[in-house]
């Protein structure tokens, strides 16, 4: 799949933003006054900034409000509702923290749950697609949720909880990669199921429909960068998990946390780039990709 930068920025930044909102909502930490304002500003700018980047993916953003209508079937529509709900509840909770120094626990809890629901909906946009075998696994929502919570906990400064979450991130990420590498071959989709040809013998593409590229090939049959996969995976794990663990084991002061967050984010962005660019859509079979299927 084409790794659109708007989607990489959106999923990475808003994930961490909503992860932080979750921890603020459940009262970890429970800052008051000015400190609460700073925390909320960081969380909201990550979450809203990410959502804003996502609108760049739309070719007709002026109609974006219509995306609130189909929550009964569409994860994209559900995501829109959960995001607005989370931001609304956390704003009310935040007003309490900043101006009155009170934490209205119930409002925070609802905001926290809605924040998690937003990340889950984002992940299900991808995880629900049968057409992309690498994404079509429960590990996709687990990975998105774990990464969102980990990023949030680094900013929230949660000490041991952060270290445990970082380790869980590493395990989930590796599991996702290992499972993903065989997902296409394990899916039942082959050139024979796609065309009905080659039940006896071997079918292969003889000529594509057009001499030049098209929308489908650009969007779904993106193959750049696959040869650097193992290097990029190492870089992603090192930045997303390795460096933050090293830094935060030494000390949880402001500067260490800041560097840890930035490194973590870089690692998440690489991970998301791989998430998109490594994902193969079954339509590629019609164009002669995946000759082993």
């Amino acid at each position, binding site marked *: 799949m084409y790794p659109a930068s708007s989607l990489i920025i959106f999923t990475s930044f808003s994930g961490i933003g909503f992860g932080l909102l979750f921890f603020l909502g459940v009262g970890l930490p429970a800052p008051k006054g000015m400190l609460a304002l700073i925390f909320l500003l960081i969380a909201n700018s990550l979450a809203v900034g990410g959502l804003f980047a996502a609108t760049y993916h739309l070719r007709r953003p002026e109609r974006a409000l219509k995306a609130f209508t189909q929550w009964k079937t569409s994860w994209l529509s559900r995501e829109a509702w959960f995001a607005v709900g989370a931001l609304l509840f956390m704003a009310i909770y935040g007003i309490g923290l900043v101006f009155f120094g009170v934490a209205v626990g119930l409002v925070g809890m609802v905001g926290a749950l809605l924040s998690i629901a937003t990340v889950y909906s984002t992940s299900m946009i991808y995880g629900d697609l049968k057409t992309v075998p690498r994404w079509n696994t429960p590990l996709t929502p687990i990975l998105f949720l774990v990464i969102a919570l980990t990023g949030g906990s680094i900013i929230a400064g949660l000490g041991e909880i952060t270290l445990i979450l970082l380790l869980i991130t590493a395990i989930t990420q590796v599991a996702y990669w290992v499972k993903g590498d065989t997902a296409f071959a394990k899916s039942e989709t082959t050139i024979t199921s*796609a065309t009905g040809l080659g039940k006896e013998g071997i079918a292969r593409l003889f000529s594509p429909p057009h001499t030049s590229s098209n929308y*489908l090939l650009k969007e779904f049959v993106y193959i750049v960068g696959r040869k650097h996969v193992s290097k990029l995976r190492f870089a992603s794990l090192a930045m997303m998990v390795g460096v933050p663990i090293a830094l935060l084991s030494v000390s949880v002061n402001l500067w260490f946390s800041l560097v840890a967050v930035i490194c973590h984010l870089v690692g998440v962005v690489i991970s998301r780039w791989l998430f998109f660019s490594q994902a193969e859509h079954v*339509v590629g079979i019609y164009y002669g990709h995946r000759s082993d299927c």
Partner: protein
Amino acid sequence: MTMLPKKTERKLGLVIDLDTCVGCHACVISCKGWNTENYGAPLSDERPYGADPTGTFLNRVHSYEVKIDGKESQLFHFPKSCLHCEDAPCVTVCPTGASYKRVEDGIVLVNEKDCIGCGLCAWACPYGARELDAAEGVMKKCTLCVDRIYNENLPEEDRVPACVRTCPSGARHFGDFSDPESQVSKISRERNGFDLMPEQATKPVNKYLPPRPKDTMKEVDVLAPFLAPVADEPEGFMAWLDKKLDKL
């Protein structure tokens, strides 16, 4: 809107015969022609006369080679457009309700005024049947020529999809699959019509007919190769003609 209907009153769709398709791409051209001038935004082209032309098409023809050990290779042409699936995954993922499946005839359509161009429906379609138009920024797909099949301004023989009307080899058939006695239901039954990617559980309405098995030449006589040639040297009139032609 993006909830799929439990049942549609009719199931309009196509039968595509892989045995008779000659790969001429006439269906591609007539589809592009009709759908550029009629329903919805035109199907745009980018750099149509440049070195790297691309454009939006609702119907494309792939060609596949099948090689069976010990036999000669066979070439099959494979037209592909929207299959108007009963469980259309493109419809349920649409966040705005722009994509929908009609209750009255099962046609899957896009209301372009509601489309935000997010592309998610094209991601959800396993067949590559939806293309985001580069100029208009909205999703385009086969409408089964909804503006032809009910169009009383057209002569009756033209009230079929443009691809079906134009196919010179009779490889495309249009009809109602909910009626077991319709022509499409019958030929699909008789010729073992099949679904594309059944494992994707989309329940396509369109059916494909498999190529018929290739016939082989019968041997005339087992002794034929041993028969002596009738004449090594021409005689009579043929000998005279041979001589004259040599002299020319």
